[in-house]
């Protein structure tokens, strides 16, 4: 991977949050988080379990309304009351559980909720030929040879399913993609397939927020890295400012991990 610097650091960020706060009753899930994503960059959101990653993406994708702070999309303050509104604003989230239905065909999954229609009045029907063609083309574009778009999603590998989910979001006009641990359940080959595709999507000019707790995966595609810990940002670093080990330590929150790594004879 050759790109080292973010491409559009200067323009208006696609998404920006400033000092965002989210309380669940007496629990402070987010205690003032700030971050931004520009077009054509991958922002990696790193953090250990319980750091507030999930709460943050659910806030960004309209599932939770923030308790306080500013949320800007294209420089305009917004407040989403449902995931649908966030989607309409171009913020698409690909969840860990994928929102894919294994028993349904790839085409049916691809167009689920946004079926292309043909015909008039009450006799509107799904344009299956068009849907199949689009699905096959989109899959081909990301390098997955779909033998038959009518085959069930259950026949695809985990990485391929993840790519279908991303391709669907891109096809339906997402400007910002939020990927919730897309590589956490995948093997090595599958992971590189997804990472390669994330890089492709970034090159197309989308903003990507890549949530992970795997530093290697993050470092492979990320332009900037925001580390969360206990509901707060520990800072944002560009790729040339920080090494993979420093990032690891920052994320783990201290020296103990380094010591443990030395003890076990390898990086964790």
């Amino acid at each position, binding site marked *: 991977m050759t790109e080292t610097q973010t491409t559009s650091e200067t323009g208006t960020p696609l998404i920006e949050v400033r000092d965002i706060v989210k309380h669940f009753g007496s629990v402070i899930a987010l205690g003032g988080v700030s971050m931004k994503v520009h077009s054509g960059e991958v922002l990696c959101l790193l953090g250990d379990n319980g750091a507030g990653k999930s709460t943050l993406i659910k806030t960004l994708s309209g599932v939770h309304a923030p308790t306080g702070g500013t949320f800007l999309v294209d420089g305009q303050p917004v407040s989403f009351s449902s995931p649908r509104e966030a989607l309409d604003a171009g913020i698409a989230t690909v969840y860990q559980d994928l929102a894919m239905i294994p028993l349904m065909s790839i085409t049916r999954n691809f167009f689920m909720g946004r079926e292309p229609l043909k015909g008039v009045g009450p006799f509107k029907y799904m344009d299956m030929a068009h849907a199949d063609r689009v699905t096959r083309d989109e899959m081909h574009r990301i390098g997955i040879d779909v*033998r038959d778009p009518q085959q069930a999603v259950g026949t695809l590998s985990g990485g391929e399913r993840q790519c279908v989910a991303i391709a669907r979001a891109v096809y339906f006009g997402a400007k910002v993609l939020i990927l919730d641990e897309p590589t956490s359940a995948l093997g090595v080959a599958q992971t590189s397939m997804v990472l390669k595709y994330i890089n492709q999507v970034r090159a197309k000019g989308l903003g990507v927020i890549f949530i992970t707790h795997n530093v290697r995966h993050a470092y492979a595609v990320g332009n900037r890295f925001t580390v969360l810990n206990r509901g707060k940002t520990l800072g944002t670093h560009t790729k040339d400012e920080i090494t993979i080990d420093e990032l690891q330590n920052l994320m783990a929150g201290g020296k103990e991990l380094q010591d443990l790594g030395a003890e076990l004879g390898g990086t964790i």
Partner: protein
Amino acid sequence: MSDGNLAASAPDAPDERLIRTTAMTRLLRRPELGALAGLVLVTCFFLIVANPAMFTLAGIMNFMAPAAQLGILAIGAALLMVGGEFDLSVGSMVAFAGLAFGTVLVTWDMPLVVAIAATLAFAAGIGALNGQIVLRTGLPSFIVTLAFLFILRGLTLVGLKWATGGATQLRGVKEAAGDSLMLTFFSGDAFEGLFAWFAANGWIDTFKNGTPKVTGVPVEILWFVGIALFATWVLLRTKFGNWIFAAGGDANAARNSGVPVRRVKTILFMGTAVCAALVAILTVLDAGSTDARRGFQKEFEAIIAAVIGGCLLTGGYGSAIGAFFGAIIFGMVLIGLTYTSIDQDWYLVFLGGMLLLAVLFNNFIRKRATGER
């Protein structure tokens, strides 16, 4: 397949692995395959064992009529099962809708068209109630509709006594219906002119006086075929059909993708209840009376027919045309046994055996077709 065929399809699909998607795989992927195979099997069995009269025109109408009555219920049940829910109250719903229909028509002396419209609307309301309880409480539909199986059956008994002044049968439907135009669609036979013409030309069997032995196609068969075609079109070719698969496959994932899962399921519950009401109207008009035992245990037969038709109990997979074939299998065996020397009571054994076989077959096929690991 010839070489020419393969070459012709090549530019369309440059992937060399495409050959692996053989016609066989495509066929196996169709959920109704099991039902079709079963139908062929059962037909062959009766062709060998039964009296040849079974497969004359009159014989076919004989077994198609009960198949149609069950099939209308089964198709509604199949769509609901694909949508991930059950309705165990359809049998009781037939009785309850029959009561509603009889009451409006006979006791309140309303015109037939009003009685039909009121019955269908009333059934839709109860279906919606079923759906709302299931969706709002999050209870399994199995339990909620099991409760309604008893509630509706009980209400039918109570209601019949109230409507008739003590009896559990309400008579006088034919007299009350009179000669309304609606009877053409909901009672008797269709295409009588055509069949008379066939008879006149000697193409079908006639009695000695020249009237055809089969005077027409019973209307319930036409409803059955029509509903099967419509349901199949909805399921496979419309947006709503895609939503049914999605809602049944994974309600949460469907919701995340913008599918209005609650609305879809409510409509499906209403659809099943309306199918039950339609069967009630057809059979009550046919018999001229309604009673509390109408539709007894039909919910199980309908679900079995849907399962034979390829519906998975877990939802998200199945077909309407499969339920159509499943219902025909039922009608064929129920009536077909009378054309053989086999004891009628084997019917129940067949029922259970067929269900078991269908579920095993479906599981096997699903695993193969979807490559589930």
